[in-house]
């Protein structure tokens, strides 16, 4: 009789746990990608900015 009760609760918490895991894992992956792209963009803009500064002088 209790099998159905525990089956029900297992279904609920498994689904919630898997969804939490998916959202937090994807957030971490995207934050990592964003950091990498920002660093890449900044590194590319630095030589341009210093060339503009030299030209201004």
């Amino acid at each position: 009789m209790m099998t159905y009760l525990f089956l029900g609760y297992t279904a609920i918490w498994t689904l919630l746990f898997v969804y939490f895991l998916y959202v937090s894992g994807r957030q971490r992956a995207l934050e990592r990608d964003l950091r990498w792209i920002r660093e890449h963009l900044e590194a590319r803009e630095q030589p341009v900015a210093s060339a503009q500064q030299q030209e201004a002088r």
Partner: protein
Amino acid sequence: MSPRNWLPWTAFVAVLLALFLAFLYAPPDANLGDTQRIFYFHVASAWTGLLAFTVVCVAGVAYLRGGAPRWDRLGLASAEVGLLFITMAVLTGSIWARFAWGTWWEWEPRLTSAFVLWLMYAATLLVRNLVEDPARRARYAAVFGIIAFADVPIVFMSVRWWRSVHPVVVSAAGLELEPPMVLAMVVAVVAFTLLYVLLVGERMHLAALEEELAECKRALREGERVR
């Protein structure tokens, strides 16, 4: 203080309290015994699912009126989390049905309308994957979310409008439960609502990160093209 600091802990405490009340405080049902305790989280899941789809409809209307991307993010997050809670409600309902009615599924009004609701919101999420252009995708999803909302009152009223084997919990006479059972149910509903708010917040943050990443990638591609 940001909700991201206190909300997870509040939801966690509420869930613990709900579990305590459902398993230890509420008495077993006279006919169904301890298995009836599925009911507390089944009702809470269904309530949260219906709330989520109401939010999808409101966010859809707000997006179509103003076009602010945050409404689209809210619609997406609420549809996804709502689908999760409706899945939980359908699964626990099916397990309950196996015990109480001797069958996993019955094509009766409440179960059928809930299944149709599940399909409609799954379709809403699929529509998002089919359209490339972000503005068009958001518009289609908003319209789809508003149309799908038509099934929410049908799900709620189905046991009142048609003959159904599904029990009616909230009737015109009020809740047909003993007071400790009502308390356990209300706390479970509050706990799941808090979980919903928490999950929607996290999903919206994820959607914002996805948009930012797409923007950065575009900037990177354009920069390479200029070179």
